[in-house]
């Protein structure tokens, strides 16, 4: 069993390690080189417009779920509204050209499933982003909020010695600091320091996620889905849970969904492909870098409910077509 377990651990780690490392490096570059003003200029001012634009960001940035967490963490630190960040976090792994192409190849001869998957990614992320914007505040969502009372700017003397990774808005952070005053050498030191710190902080949750996922893969029988052919919403809920446990990369999960199409209808398969790309065991762990536990639980529930609702509508559309 150890051999099987280590095979799963190694496979999932190799699949995600590049995206994690490039994610923390990009996050560090954003942190040091992008000013807060830049973010506020780029982000549309209107709530609905901003969230709508955020839900389509993946078309330009095809990043999978492992890489997007540290990048979004960096953007929140730079002042990106949390609702926009949540929208991007959920939409980018689904709504991007790589995922679209792999879905089209997995379901050849029809563009319907691929387009419905993209539409689902946009719809679910938009609705949940809007819900976050209306019903919650940063105190409820973020692990550390930017307006901490003991906020203090970075100690420039000890910048390179700072043995602490900043989570979004944490008290040590240089949020609001004018980075243009730092020398180029200090900026590079900042990127190096931040990259390593964030790699170990985010990587910790990434690895815990892998260890848990591999345990599921090793010990849960492969025929777990046999006989789950009841009426809506049982298959949809089952496939959502199955995607959560499997933690497969969003760029290849369509092939796995296709192999189960003799058991499940398109609605349940869409649930597998949309919710699995948005949240799974691995990303749940990684999200703890940014969000409070209670918000992660609510977010997961929101993803399940909205994905199942979308799949119901999508199946109705497919029947009409």
């Amino acid at each position, binding site marked *: 069993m150890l*051999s099987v377990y280590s095979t799963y651990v190694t496979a999932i780690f190799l699949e995600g390690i590049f995206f994690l490392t490039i994610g923390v490096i990009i996050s560090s570059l954003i942190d040091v080189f992008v000013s807060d003003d830049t973010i506020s200029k780029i982000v549309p001012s209107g709530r609905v417009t901003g969230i709508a634009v955020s839900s389509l960001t993946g078309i330009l940035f095809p990043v999978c779920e492992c890489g997007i967490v540290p990048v979004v963490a960096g953007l929140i630190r730079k002042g990106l509204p949390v609702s926009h960040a949540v929208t991007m976090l959920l939409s980018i792994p689904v709504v991007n050209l790589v995922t679209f192409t792999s879905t089209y190849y997995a379901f050849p001869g029809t563009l319907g499933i691929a387009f419905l998957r993209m539409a689902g990614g946009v719809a679910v992320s938009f609705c949940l982003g809007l819900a976050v914007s209306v019903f919650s505040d940063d105190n409820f969502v973020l692990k550390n909020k930017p307006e901490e009372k003991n906020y203090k700017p970075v100690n420039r003397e000890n910048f390179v010695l700072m043995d602490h990774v900043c989570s979004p808005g944490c008290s040590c952070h240089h949020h609001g600091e004018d980075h243009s005053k730092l020398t180029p050498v200090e900026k590079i030191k900042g990127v190096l320091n931040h990259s*390593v710190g964030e790699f170990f902080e985010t990587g910790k949750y990434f690895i815990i996620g892998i260890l848990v996922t591999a345990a599921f893969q090793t010990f849960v029988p492969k025929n777990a889905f046999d006989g789950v052919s009841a009426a809506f919403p049982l298959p949809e809920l089952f496939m959502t849970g199955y995607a959560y446990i499997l933690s497969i990369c969003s760029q290849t999960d369509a092939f796995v969904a296709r192999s189960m199409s*003799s058991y499940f209808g398109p609605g349940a398969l869409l649930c597998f492909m949309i919710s699995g790309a948005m949240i799974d065991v691995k990303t749940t762990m990684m999200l703890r870098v940014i969000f409070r536990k209670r918000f992660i639980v609510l977010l997961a529930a929101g993803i399940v409910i909205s994905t199942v609702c979308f799949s119901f509508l999508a199946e109705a559309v497919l029947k009409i077509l």
Partner: protein
Amino acid sequence: MKLLRYIYMFREFILLSLLFITLERLVNGRQLYSFLNPGYHVFVNLAMVTVFFLTGAALFISAGRDLEVDTPQGYFRYFVFIVLIALLNTGSDSTTFSSHLTEGNTLTPDASMNSFSAAGDIKPGPDSDIYNTSGDFIEITKENYYFIVNDIYSAPGKYEGKRISVDGFVYKSKKLKKCDFIIARLIIFCCAADAGIGGFITDASGINESFIKDEWLRVDGVLRLEKRGGEKPAPVLKLESFKRIPADKEPYIYPAYN
């Protein structure tokens, strides 16, 4: 004690170095094939570059620390990395993994067929002879496996009555007839986490021989279309002859790569 303080001072550098060495060992030891579709190996190579960058950064940071000031804290995150590195160095046994995938898996011919029809537009490679399916005899090898098997499931009528030779392991399912088995291969779409099984139903009713689960065979037979539980007739290989062969050391089929 001072040595331990130094180890702690360089903790990130030591762990990242071990991670880099592990990645290098996996890449150069050609072990990646057991875990990942070769189409994704480029990402592991790129990861080596980014991990190397982080290792250099960690050395820079560690060297700038004050040994006396830097007090040990936050052991857990480092412990998690040590566990990971240990598991990455445990290695993989494809036979055990193959058995794990087939255990408790009640794959039906329909599901098997769907695994293959998921291929999409796989184009023949440069050596077009092995993709030639116009003759009466088709030899399915690792190189043409995905292309031909996918084509058989996409347009089974084209292959009815043709003689086919293929290697694979014996996979048995309760949903099959007693005399049937699936001559199967393991498929890795992206990584071992999404590995699955696919293959042909093989009708061994004319052969007075019992086949054991997981044993490797080279089978030769004629392809027929028969109803086997699904809505449409499925391709069934009517077994005419077989040969027991050693298990393939690299048993996986990699869609969109082979």
